[in-house]
């Protein structure tokens, strides 16, 4: 009896979340050639999505529930969670057919069998990376930004060149770090941390003057992690536009169907609506020259 109640409650929640997450979206027709039983999945009939932990806003929302910290990808709240559920819906998955699994970023691309159908945690596309894994089409175009402590000299920077005298840091392996070494080229060697949290700690300690993260992540840093910090500015795009994609094991045929689903979400403007809902307030920071 209790179980039945729970199931009913979960179904109700799912319904509420699905209607709120999909907004004004019309009911979906199946994508030709992409019936669920024809898809190449980890587990038949279930879509297994990998994500890193902690899952933080505005990428993921909701209240944390084990094993997730800070937020919960299963909530349907937050941009990436909402996009993942929208894609799954296009493919015809019910909310209950979706499993989330914790996968550290580095595990998402190292060789060997992948424990997920696709991985979604702000992975930027690059041609070199594309040789080790397969990327989906873009679900977001990204800009990097610099965060510093309020009242410090770095916050007066107006151009990218103004940032050069400062010691900067970022999570290693991210495009944020690459932006520092390739485009800012600061005069003191940048720091590369295991996690964003360690970079944030170093900023608090004054060991570095600024951290570079993608623009939406600045929201989490400046509101939750260091309230005494602010966005110095967004960094101008250099070279190709940076785009986020889902990561697939190389050669996984599932990608074709997911790409079609993403195409649809761009075309029916679902993605735009989700970006307005989850990311609009963080994209307003001024851009450095």
């Amino acid at each position, binding site marked *: 009896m209790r179980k039945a109640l729970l199931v009913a409650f979960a179904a109700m929640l799912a319904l509420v979340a699905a209607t709120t997450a999909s907004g004004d979206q019309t009911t979906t027709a199946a994508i030709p050639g992409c019936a669920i039983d024809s898809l190449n999945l980890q587990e038949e009939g279930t879509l297994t999505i990998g994500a890193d932990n902690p899952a933080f806003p505005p990428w993921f929302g909701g209240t944390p529930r084990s094993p997730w910290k800070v937020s919960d990808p299963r909530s349907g709240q937050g941009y990436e969670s909402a996009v993942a559920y929208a894609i799954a819906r296009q493919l015809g998955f019910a909310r209950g057919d979706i499993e989330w699994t914790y996968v550290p970023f580095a595990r998402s691309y190292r*060789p060997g069998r992948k424990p997920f159908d696709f991985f979604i945690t702000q992975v930027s596309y690059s041609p070199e*990376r594309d040789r080790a894994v397969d990327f989906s089409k873009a679900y977001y175009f990204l800009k990097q930004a610099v965060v510093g402590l309020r009242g410090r000299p770095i916050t007066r920077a107006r151009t990218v060149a103004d940032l050069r005298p400062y010691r900067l840091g970022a999570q290693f392996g991210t495009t944020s770090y690459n932006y520092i070494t390739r485009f800012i080229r600061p005069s003191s060697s940048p720091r590369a941390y*295991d996690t964003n949290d360690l970079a944030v700690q*170093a900023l608090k300690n004054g060991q*570095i003057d600024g951290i570079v993260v993608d623009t939406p992540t600045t929201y989490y840093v400046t509101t939750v992690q260091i309230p005494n910090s602010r966005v110095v500015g967004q960094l101008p795009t250099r070279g190709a536009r940076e785009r986020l994609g889902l990561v697939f094991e190389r050669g996984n045929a599932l990608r074709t169907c997911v790409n079609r689903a993403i195409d649809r979400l761009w075309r029916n403007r679902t993605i735009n609506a989700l970006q307005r809902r989850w990311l609009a307030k963080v994209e307003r920071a001024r851009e450095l020259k």
Partner: protein
Amino acid sequence: VAAVVLLVTRASGWEEFKAYFFDWERYRESFPEIADAFWINVKIFLIAEAIILFTALGLAVLRGLPGPVFLPIRLLAIAYADFFRGVPTILVILMLGTGMPALGISWVPISEMFWAIVALVLVYTAYVSEVYRAGIESVHPSQDAAARSLGLTRAQSLRHVVIPQAVRRVVPPLLNDFIGLQKDTALVSVLGVVEALRQTQINEAAEFNGTYYLVAATLFVALTIPLARATDWLVARERRQRLAAAGVR
């Protein structure tokens, strides 16, 4: 060996493995960059080693002080060695490197390199003092007794008779610990310092390719092998001299 090679190369994931870890193009291209970063490891190692050689000897001597008067000092020395041999090095580095600067005391340095070196010195002083202690205890008590009977004080006997013999005996295990220290410099990466390991991780994540690990491994091995051979040579020479002095051929 042949069996292992066959097993590995015939594994179903071999092609993927090969592409991920053995990309010679990337190996050549990234070598100078990672070698640059490796220079930081070498610096940390050299500074830490120079300090440890003395602090560890000091700790070993303190632990060997005789009589009930020095009991508290002996106990402290034992507690120190137990603690820093017991706590994982990476924890000590993280605690000091992120903890001390967080205190916000103006005269406490905030440099990651500084605290990384302090952490390595603390941990390896504990290891190396045990090696010294073994060396000191291996010198026969009659040596000390003979020195004292010639009118040397305890300190003089220690300085001129016991320690020279002790150090010569423990050169091989000492070098062993220093090779360990050299490798542990890679742990400094957790504080954000871009040394050899962190540079390889950055490159790996930038291109999703693991060949860079091979570059770092090459550099570490290239430094430790000459060190190991030099020790072998030192030990052999020392043995020759001792045997010659004893009239044995």
